[in-house]
């Protein structure tokens, strides 16, 4: 037998002797079509590009390749559930449904199927209570943290005293938009500000009544929980009535480039909360260029890299990969199951040293997850729009939210859910 044949035989034997590792499956429930596509595309691109980069650069997670399955939800709850049902059999490790409506439908399903779900900055806020919601995670921040982050920022720029000031909440008249109301009501009692509530009906193309009311009542600050076209119209209407943009603060879902660009220069100074970095001035983007863009493997049109919502998808994928690595370490196997992934998410620790090693220094807050706390500490920062440069600028550190107020609300809501569904507390 010739040497080459021998070598080939040996190589085949070694390959067959090694355990065959299946791919690590990460479904991407995206929405690239429909009225909300402008927000869905950059997130889906960021999510996909991070996995592509890890596969190309590191050969996957712990040497096991990542397989991302994309399923189009159109931001439609029924389609989202269909996507879940059609992909869970592939060995899905974690779901990020990117919609509060889909999240609510999937909570009982993922719990029954033993698959973890990560709803970063959206979904059911009280899922932060890991004692009740075993399979749902919403670190590093949730809607209620966002409301508190906004009030804290207003406190900061008023030397800690906002007694007698008025804050108007302009919100999408849906379960999502109403999320911060209770938190803001509690915070208004604590800090003595007056809260004014202004609901905007879906889709939010016509907001004249709300902005005329703001013009009449002259609140000191406006906080917005908007989505889709509501954001662009609100920014334009605020500019039209000459509301000071630096006093207008949107939640992270109102903080994309596409939310401010249509208003042009008039949007200058508008602020939005964030729990991740903005722009692409991070070393990791050199790897994205080298391993994703240059080989022609960028997701979508490849034109979203560095935008706010792209970075959110990128960050979400990074957290998923780090949780998978943690799961591999805990269980000592590379080919992890959804149950192991859940354990990894519950033991996830993100610190600055890890972020720096990943080429993402200060890209997100440092936090850790535990059995009891699936939401992290709720750290959030503030970004401000520079219309001239057409870019967001992070103007604050990732600061804590008022967990004294939010913690109580989370316990109250999650315990009510536990009582309704006969869920026994865990982590004891």
């Amino acid at each position, binding site marked *: 037998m010739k040497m080459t044949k021998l070598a080939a035989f040996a190589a085949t034997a070694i390959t067959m002797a090694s355990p065959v590792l299946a791919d690590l499956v990460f479904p991407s429930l995206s929405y690239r079509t*429909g009225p909300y596509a402008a927000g869905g595309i950059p997130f889906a691109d960021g999510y996909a590009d991070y996995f592509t980069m890890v596969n190309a650069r590191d050969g996957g997670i712990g040497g096991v390749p990542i397989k991302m399955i994309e399923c189009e939800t159109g931001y439609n709850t029924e389609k989202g559930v269909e996507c879940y049902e059609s992909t869970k059999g592939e060995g899905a490790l974690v779901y990020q449904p990117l919609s509060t409506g889909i999240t609510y439908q999937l909570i009982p399903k993922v719990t029954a199927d033993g698959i973890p779900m990560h709803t970063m900055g959206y979904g059911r806020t009280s899922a932060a209570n890991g004692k009740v919601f075993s399979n749902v995670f919403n670190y590093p921040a949730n809607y209620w943290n966002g409301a508190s982050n906004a009030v804290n920022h207003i406190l900061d720029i008023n030397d800690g005293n906002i007694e007698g000031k008025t804050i108007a909440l302009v919100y999408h008249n849906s379960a999502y938009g109403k999320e911060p109301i209770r938190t803001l009501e509690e915070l208004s009692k604590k800090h003595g500000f007056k809260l004014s509530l202004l*609901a905007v009906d879906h889709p939010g193309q*016509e907001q004249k*009544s709300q902005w005329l009311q703001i013009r009449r009542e002259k609140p000191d600050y406006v906080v917005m929980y908007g989505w889709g076209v509501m954001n662009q119209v609100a920014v334009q209407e605020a500019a039209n009535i000459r509301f000071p943009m630096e006093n207008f603060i949107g939640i992270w879902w109102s903080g994309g480039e596409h939310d401010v660009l249509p208003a042009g220069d008039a949007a200058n100074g508008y602020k939005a909360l964030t729990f991740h970095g903005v722009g692409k001035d991070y070393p990791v983007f050199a790897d994205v260029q080298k391993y994703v863009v240059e080989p*022609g493997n960028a997701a979508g049109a490849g034109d979203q890299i560095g935008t706010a919502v792209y970075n959110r998808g990128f960050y979400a994928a990074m957290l998923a990969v780090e949780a998978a690595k943690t799961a591999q370490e805990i269980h000592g196997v590379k080919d992890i199951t959804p149950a192991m992934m859940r354990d990894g998410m519950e033991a996830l620790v993100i610190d600055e040293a890890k972020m720096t090693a990943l080429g993402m220094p200060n890209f997100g807050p440092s936090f850790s997850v535990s059995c009891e706390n699936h939401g992290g500490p709720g750290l959030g920062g503030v970004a401000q729009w520079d219309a001239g440069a057409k870019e967001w600028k992070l103007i604050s550190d990732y600061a804590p939210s008022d967990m004294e107020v939010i913690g109580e609300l989370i316990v109250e809501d999650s315990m009510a859910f536990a009582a309704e569904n006969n869920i026994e507390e865990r982590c004891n």
Partner: protein
Amino acid sequence: MSANFYFGVEVFLNGLMAGVMYSLVALGFVLIFKASGIFNYAQGVMALFAALTLVGFQNGQIPFAHLINAIFGTDLHHFGWHMPAFLAILCALGVMILFAFLVERYILKHLVNQEPIILFMATIGLAYFMEGFGDLMWGSDIKKLDVGIPQGGNIWLEENTAFLGGEDFYGFYLDNLDIWATVLAAILVTSLVLFSQYTKTGRALRAVADDHQAALSVGISLRSIWVIVWSIAGFVALVAGIMWGSKSGVQFSLSLIALKALPVLMLGGFTSIPGAIIGGLIIGVGEKMFEFLIGAPFLGGATENWFAYMLALLFLVFRPQGLFGEKIIERV
């Protein structure tokens, strides 16, 4: 007079302006229904498609660039020009006329003499096809639309009316864009009325609207009339797309503006151009005043959508054909 009174007047005026914006959308529905008895579900998507095409021409965007790049591995996106707004509007209008030809050639021609519900369903299919086609052609990103129409509060009006209501009143607020929309709507309606009353084609349109069979018997080509009507509806959609797109950027939720036109049609009637205008004004003022007087202070706000439909429903109960619609009597 107290500041509150003047704020009420301000809400009333803004309601009129909002009503004009709704009417712009409703007009397209009326034109097609009047001439062909088709409730064109695709009217909102036509406004979106027209606005997308306009911005595409203005920015020199290469149509289907994403598709071409995906197939051939190229990196095409723009031609590198910036077309003047007027020329881009003419080009977009040309595309809408071409669209009218294609709709007639490939859809309507094959559905002559079918039940109205079949034609309605065909327009549903057309709407979803156009939404996807527009996405493929121009991309899903939100595009800034600037054809030179000024935006923002009218400062002159604000400053010259500030004295009316004392310290708490800051002058009337009216958006320049809405003022322009009103002027454009007035020109549009006048032109449409003059066209239908005093031109040969206009008279043919009215003849077809009155009785298809009779019009055919005197030699009017139904197919040509449909092309003309869909072209005019395409032009109206372009105007609506420009006005709404200037407010929010051109994006796919623009197609949802059709929802704002439905109560206007229910109230004004499906066959009357003045009805679309008057209906729009009543809906605009009604929903804004209700929100100001009752909705925001007592009901938690966001009452405009359902109130508009409730108001239209009330009119329907007492006048099923709408304020200006023709009463349909079918002999059996």
